[in-house]
């Protein structure tokens, strides 16, 4: 066994301080880790849970939501409120869908519970607003969010990893989810890019208390 240098010798020779100095000197020679944010944007990793959106169904050009209320039920922060009407065939029609993004905790339960893969947390992470109302997303706003996200997506199709959670038994998933293919993304040039100004408050419906 190597004999340890006596403690007072280490103190006199500033061994610990010299070790620290060596560490900082080595760090200085390494490239810095700083990312110059507005100029260097980071691509989100798959599974990143960002801004809420309704997937735009390429066939109907509308949202796919069937007003089953599962997302509103599972939501731990109860930030989703849904209203619907039932027609004579017993089919539900969505009349109101609102997410309060300021209350959302981005757990992703809504997108993993949705039987038709309608609601999704996109990879958009730049969606600041000047007002609180700017964070209350109604149907139109959620579709707009999708368009905005789709326009800047670099891949030709989008598949959210929460639609088929890792380790889930595929046979037990809802039929639509089982058959869900990556959604082809149409590049819509007028949808804007990340960082552009959002439609201001008041354009969607004003949030009302106690709609559940």
């Amino acid at each position, binding site marked *: 066994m190597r004999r340890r240098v006596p403690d007072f010798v280490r103190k006199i020779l500033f061994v610990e301080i010299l070790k*620290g100095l060596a560490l900082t000197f080595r760090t*200085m020679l390494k490239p*810095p*880790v700083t990312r110059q944010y507005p100029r260097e944007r980071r691509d989100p990793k798959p599974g990143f849970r960002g801004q809420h959106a309704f997937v735009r169904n390429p066939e109907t050009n509308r949202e796919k939501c069937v007003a089953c209320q599962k997302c509103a039920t599972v939501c731990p922060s109860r930030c989703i409120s849904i209203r619907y009407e039932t027609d004579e065939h017993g089919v539900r029609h969505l009349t109101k869908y609102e997410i309060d993004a300021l209350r959302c905790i981005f757990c992703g339960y809504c997108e993993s519970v949705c039987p038709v893969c309608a609601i999704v947390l996109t990879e958009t992470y730049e969606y600041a607003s000047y007002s609180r109302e700017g964070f209350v997303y109604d149907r139109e706003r959620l579709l707009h969010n999708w368009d905005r996200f789709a326009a800047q997506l670099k891949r030709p199709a989008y598949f959210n990893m929460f639609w088929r959670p890792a380790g889930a038994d595929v046979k037990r998933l809802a039929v639509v989810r089982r058959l869900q293919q990556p959604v082809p993304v149409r590049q819509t040039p007028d949808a804007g890019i990340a960082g552009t100004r959002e439609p201001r408050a008041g354009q969607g419906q004003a949030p009302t208390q106690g709609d559940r």
Partner: protein
Amino acid sequence: MELLLTIGKSVLFVAVVFAVTLLHVAYATYFERKVIGRMQGRIGPVEVGFRGLLQPFADMVKSLFKEDIIPNEADRPLFFLAPVIVVASVMTSLAVIPFFNNGSIANLNVGVLFIFAMASLAVYGIIVAGWSSNSKYAFLGGVRSAAQVISYEIAMGISLAGVFLMAGSLNLSDIVLAQREQPMGMFAVVQVVGFVVFVISAFAETNRTPFDLPEAETELVAGYLTEYSGFRYALFFLAEYISMYIMAALVALCYLGGWALPGFLTRALPFLELVPGIVWFLLKVYAFMFFYFWVRATLPRYRFDQLMAIGWKILIPVAVLNMVITAGVKRWLM
């Protein structure tokens, strides 16, 4: 006529030294931020000018245009006077530093003592700043500074006594010339104990990490600077950096051989004589400045009682021992 010419020359030299020092101080802040940034894995200033090179000027303009706030209950004359005392006394020390051979504004025979005296005078400015601000943080910062500088000045002076004994002079030029035939051409080899004590004291004397207790921002907001803003704040800042340069210059002159090169080197490579002495001087000064920043990026701050313990229980006895041994060797062995 002769007299006028001499006066004109001196004034010009003073102006040049003043301007060059200010420029060096401006870029010392840039150098410091870059070095510390890189040591912490960051990049430091990059926005203003090419690679952030105009950052010091942006800072200067900013501090000039800041609102000048004076606390209501402050002692106004002293509050105005404090930064002037600090800057004036620190700037005065620049006069006796030989930047190259015969290159000092005033070649005093007691140059080092003069620098010490001026450094102590600067502490008055800091105490006055703390006192006149009428703020407990500023006051505590000022008191700490006084205690700290008094303690470390002793160790510093005694550690330099070894150098004086070896050089046989207090004149900075003579000290530099006396080092030429030393091993490596510097006293730092023979006087290594004194050198280490001096370096540690220099950190304490200029209130730099790990001894930056007078402005310990985690506990005292900004210490004696707390109530100052705008241009007066900039003056304190300026004084701090100039005193760092002066300490670096003292280390370069008294321990690292100043502007001169070791005798064996100039004999082996005679063409090195052609390089102006100020190049070697600045090289040594900047090496020490880098060391200042390097230590700041590495070490945390000492507690106040630790600071006092290091000063009185370790540095002063070691410095005294060093002085006595040096004197003994000089008396009986040489």
